[in-house]
């Protein structure tokens, strides 16, 4: 829904841009007409122009006659690659263009192919954000293509430029998707005794319900990336959540054990997609400095999922509700999330928004040569899927970073997930707490998240200081923070706290 409104808004913006740029082009050419200079067709020069970079000074000299038509978007625009040929919007009124130097003296230069252009080309100069290139299409036609980009770095339709509130909303929606997906992974652990008894299997086999879901996560996460980079984030979220809900229904209604764990695997397969695509959404929305607090915002809610699963399911076991209610509750949660995504989540993938822009350009100008960066990409979806599948395995042999980080995180997750089944032994057997309360103890683990929130402002300050240091060292401004700044989160206590707390918990677990 929101994406559709976005689509329309992009169309309106494009329409306005075309009108504005046409006026600008008219102003350009009308000025030259006033001076009564001879005209010349640039048609023959098009091929040559394609290869030469338009000199920047010709843009500077355009600015003075254009002062009265300057629109806010043009202020301080970095020189963008300009189109040298434009769609045939107007009659070919060809004029030559006199050049003014900075003192506003009119110098009439001998029109060469570099300074001389028609209204068409003037329009090309004014159509901000459109870049003409030579492209070879899949049908092996070689031709010119106008690659559409944002209207400028301050384009309000670009996700990075959205208001804080919109971006936080989009982040929250995505983190709720992650919450819904991951909560389902652990909720079955809360009703393990009842579940195992129902199907007549041992509790070890019963823990397969959780395990298969996680294995589905593992397998599904490999496929999600390339799809979202072609089809856009929202479509992926909506389709995969819908399929996930179907499989959850299967889980809830499964008549036998085998069927149930199969459905769990398939549900995990489709629930993993939002998890991996969510990282992409966060990158779409926030610049590297802002990610310092945006990513923890996502992680706080998203990774609280496995912790709240048992809490949600805590009293389903002992009560008279069947264990199947775990699945139904997760279904309801997924349904709510799906509704929110369909109605309220904007599309954040910049390349897809550019495709919509190109589509509007095509529709409004009737010229088929407008393309978005996505459409001129050489690799097909199938190729990128294949690359996405084998490249991770190639990378691990040479990348100690990936290896070590994945080992580290793997061990953390091992610890976490053995707790799902282990709490029963630690708390129920020793202290005789009921099954319900045992699962509520997971809230304590969530409380352990909170120090992250407390250290966040400090880390943010440090990140800014580090960026300033980078600027001093390298002399460039606006560089993103070095990756090591992301490690502070872990270093500031997390890394120590895990073994310490494990030992602590292990040796205080006595009845007395």
């Amino acid at each position: 829904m929101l994406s559709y409104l976005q689509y329309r808004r992009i169309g309106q913006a494009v329409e306005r841009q075309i009108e504005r740029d046409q006026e600008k082009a008219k102003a350009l050419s009308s000025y030259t007409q006033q001076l009564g200079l001879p005209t010349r067709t640039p048609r023959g020069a098009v091929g040559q122009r394609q290869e030469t970079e338009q000199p920047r000074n010709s843009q500077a000299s355009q600015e003075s006659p254009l002062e009265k038509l300057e629109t806010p978007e043009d202020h301080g625009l970095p020189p963008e690659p300009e189109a040298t040929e434009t769609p045939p919007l107007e009659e070919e009124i060809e004029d030559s263009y006199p050049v003014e130097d900075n003192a506003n003296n009119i110098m009439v230069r001998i029109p060469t192919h570099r300074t001389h252009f028609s209204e068409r080309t003037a329009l090309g100069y004014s159509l901000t954000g459109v870049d003409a290139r030579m492209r070879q299409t899949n049908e092996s036609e070689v031709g010119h293509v106008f690659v559409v980009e944002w209207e400028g770095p301050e384009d309000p339709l670009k996700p990075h430029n959205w208001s804080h509130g919109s971006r936080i909303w989009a982040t929250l929606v995505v983190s709720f998707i992650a919450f819904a997906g991951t909560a389902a992974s652990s909720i079955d652990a809360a009703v393990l005794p009842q579940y195992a008894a129902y199907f007549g299997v041992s509790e070890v086999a019963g823990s397969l319900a959780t395990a298969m879901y996680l294995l589905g996560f593992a397998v599904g996460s490999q496929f999600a990336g390339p799809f979202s980079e072609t089809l856009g984030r929202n479509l992926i979220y909506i389709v995969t959540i819908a399929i996930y809900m179907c499989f959850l229904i299967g889980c809830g209604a499964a008549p036998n054990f085998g069927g149930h764990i199969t459905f769990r695997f398939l549900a995990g397969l489709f629930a993993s997609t939002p998890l991996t695509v969510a990282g992409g959404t966060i990158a779409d929305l926030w610049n590297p400095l802002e990610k310092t607090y945006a990513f923890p915002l996502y992680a706080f809610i998203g990774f609280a999922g496995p912790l709240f699963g048992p809490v949600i399911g805590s009293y389903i076991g002992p009560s008279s509700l069947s264990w199947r209610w775990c699945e139904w509750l997760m279904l309801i949660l997924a349904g709510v999330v799906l509704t929110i995504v369909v109605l309220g989540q904007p599309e954040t993938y910049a390349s897809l928004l550019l495709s919509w822009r190109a589509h509007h350009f095509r529709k409004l100008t009737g010229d088929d040569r407008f393309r978005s960066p996505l459409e001129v990409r050489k690799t097909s979806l199938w190729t990128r899927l294949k690359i996405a599948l084998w490249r991770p395995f190639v990378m691990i042999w040479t990348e100690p970073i990936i290896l070590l980080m994945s080992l580290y995180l793997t061990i953390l997750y091992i610890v976490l997930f053995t707790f799902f089944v282990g709490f029963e032994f630690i708390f129920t057997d020793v202290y005789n707490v009921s099954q319900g309360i045992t699962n509520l103890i997971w809230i304590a683990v969530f409380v352990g998240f909170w120090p992250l929130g407390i250290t966040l402002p400090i880390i943010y300050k440090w990140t800014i200081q580090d960026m300033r240091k980078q600027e001093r060292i390298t002399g460039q401004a606006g560089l993103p923070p070095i990756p090591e700044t992301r490690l502070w989160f872990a270093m500031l206590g997390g890394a120590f706290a895990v073994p310490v707390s494990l030992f602590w918990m292990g040796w205080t677990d006595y009845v007395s």
Partner: protein
Amino acid sequence: MYVIDSYAVYAASALSFVTLSRYLAAGGMTVVGIPFYRNMNPHWTLTILGAISALMAPVPFVFYYFGARIRIKSSYAVHRHE
């Protein structure tokens, strides 16, 4: 996040491996968990888990001090020539 920042363009591939390994391990351990806790008392189970994670605890620090050097050697990671 460290992985995402280190690998910029290839972050998706790097992250997908990390995700794969950690959920495979998590899935496996969930099944192993019950026998683990049952056969060895929770005391020793947690001791073992604590020892393993203590081994891995220095990892963020290693990356903090040696990260830049590691990334320069790698062909996929971003590195700034300072």
